[in-house]
């Protein structure tokens, strides 16, 4: 009896797997099969990246499979092994870790499957190209924008700044911190800026609120918040409002500059609660990534250089209305 039940369950599973996999074999016009793994599908940034990839997939006859790694390098590495076994034509990797994914990339190399990295790169293995933002330069732009707002605000010096950093060890967190500090440190030395708190909120919204609340109970004398992503900045905004303070570019308000320009943050810029946010172009990363993979596999394209940096837009009140179109124009893939 029990054996029969097991048999039924097993054949059910087999039927399910077959049903799910039939569309793989039905494709007629030789589409290129591309696999895209993003670090976290809960993050709107990666949702947009995947959207760009899907748009390019439709345009360049690509069969795109998108998987999420839940910020877990082990899961991502396993996913990648599965993709190698499935013999995809190209792998687009948005690595969760600089080093942990190197062995998986090397396994793809040995299997002869080209790998491209998007948004973040890995430290080894052969990659065809790395398509992403120059995070250090973008963070410098964010910090410079903040300093510009501070100068115009007429606030008393030294300007008291809170830094909210990303997940310790993540390359985007490290590079953004480097960019922030490259601009701010000279100002700290000359006494124009004082960094009141430099804490991590792990790129998370609830932790942004938590950390900023704690900072505000230490001192309410804060002129600006510079956050390594918008989710933390939105959390900080909530903490500021809950503390009965104002966010904005007025003289008595706290300036907030975020990073990533997710929809909600752009809306805050439009309302004047955020001074600025930096729009990377995840849509273009996804689009270029899939386009490059397809062209490379078909032998139509060679990368002109390894690092293809996607455009960055500083979003302020002036251009906030146009930001979606500004960052969703894929433009021409370098080398085409």
């Amino acid at each position, binding site marked *: 009896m029990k054996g029969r039940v097991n048999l039924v369950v097993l054949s059910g599973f087999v039927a399910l797997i077959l049903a799910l996999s039939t569309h793989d074999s039905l494709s007629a016009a030789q589409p290129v099969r591309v696999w895209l793994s993003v670090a976290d599908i809960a993050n709107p940034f990666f949702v947009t990246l995947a959207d760009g990839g899907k748009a390019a997939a439709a345009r360049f006859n690509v069969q795109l499979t998108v998987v999420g790694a839940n910020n877990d390098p082990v899961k991502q590495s396993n996913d990648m092994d599965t993709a190698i076994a499935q013999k995809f034509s190209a792998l687009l990797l948005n690595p969760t870790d600089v080093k942990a994914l190197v062995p998986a990339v090397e396994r793809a190399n040995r299997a002869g499957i080209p790998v491209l990295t998007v948004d973040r790169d890995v430290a080894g293995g052969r990659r065809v190209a790395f398509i992403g933002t120059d995070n250090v330069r973008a963070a410098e732009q964010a910090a410079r924008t903040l300093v510009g707002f501070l100068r115009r605000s007429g606030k008393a010096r030294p300007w008291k700044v809170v830094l909210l950093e990303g997940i310790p060890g993540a390359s985007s967190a490290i590079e953004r911190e480097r960019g922030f500090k490259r601009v701010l440190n000279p100002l700290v030395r000359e006494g124009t800026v004082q960094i009141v708190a430099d804490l991590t909120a792990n790129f998370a919204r609830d932790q942004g609120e938590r950390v900023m609340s704690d900072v505000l109970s230490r001192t309410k004398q804060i002129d600006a918040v510079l956050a390594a992503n918008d989710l933390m900045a939105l959390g900080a905004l909530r903490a500021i409002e*809950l503390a009965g303070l104002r966010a904005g570019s007025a003289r008595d308000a706290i300036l907030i500059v975020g990073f990533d320009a997710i929809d909600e943050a752009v809306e805050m810029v439009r309302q004047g609660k955020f001074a600025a946010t930096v729009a990377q172009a995840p849509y273009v990363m996804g689009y270029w990534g899939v386009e490059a993979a397809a062209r490379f596999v078909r032998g139509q394209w060679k990368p002109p250089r390894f690092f293809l940096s996607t455009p960055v837009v500083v979003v302020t009140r002036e251009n906030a209305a146009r930001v979606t179109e500004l960052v969703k124009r894929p433009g021409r893939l370098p080398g085409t």
Partner: protein
Amino acid sequence: MREWLSQLNRNRELFALSTLLGLSALSSALSPHFLTETNLKNLLAHVSVLAAVTAGETFVMLTGGIDLSVGSVLALSGVASGMAIQWWRWPAPFATLAGVAVGLACGAVNGFLVTRVRIPSFIATLAMLAIARGLTLLLSGGESISDFPASFTWLAGFVGPIPVLILAVLLLYAGLQVVLGATPFGQHIYAIGGNEQAARLVGIRADRVKFLVFSISGGCAGCAGVLLAARLNSAYPNAGVGLELDAIASSVLGGVSFTGGVGSLVGAFMGAMVVTVLGTLLNLLNVSPFYQFLAKGAILLLAAISLARGVMYAK
């Protein structure tokens, strides 16, 4: 020394209480900002979410089980109530109830899996941890649902100097304390945690009790999810990642035995306070978060050591 420790062992909440007092004293000595009104208000608001989740976790742990799904269930409930308000335009009280109901339902599924399908709670709730997070992401499309009407966000406000959040959670604790301390059901929970085989032999319907206990835990996580959404003015799909570990740590700090049968809600609440005060202290001191893990681990270990006195063996 040994006498002191055995004394601690008898009053299992004492460790949490003394740690809490010690930590608070240390905090006010190290940072002039600790004993300020703002900080105390923040502290109470921030402990609320963890405390609500810990209450449910404590119920499950008292029966000797464990609920790993609370963080994910919290996120799912928050997103559910956010969707109800923002997408379907439900009135805030109904949306709040919807969030709690979603939590209860997840808990009930856990309870069903443990009592009917007979899957160990560690595994059943581990599956729920993944499933609830997945549903949260699917439903929300990975994006936060934000900007709720004032009829919902008043939960993040204050009655005088006291956050509504903590009042809601204290109300929850009061209700649960009555259930635990003054009903046969409460006694059955302790009996099952003490010796499930014996409890079954004397006619306690252990499966029913355990089913309800998991439902309560889900419901508590649901409440916490709604409260956090109100606090953040946003239902955030990645909320509560890793929260189950803080909840378990809080319960253990508060003297709840990991093998069941021993512990109290008062202790659990103090455990949650210890975890929260610790985080706040390190933020106030602008200390790197790396140390937060070390400090949390060290305190948990100390609590466990003090509670391990008199235990014959551990597995």
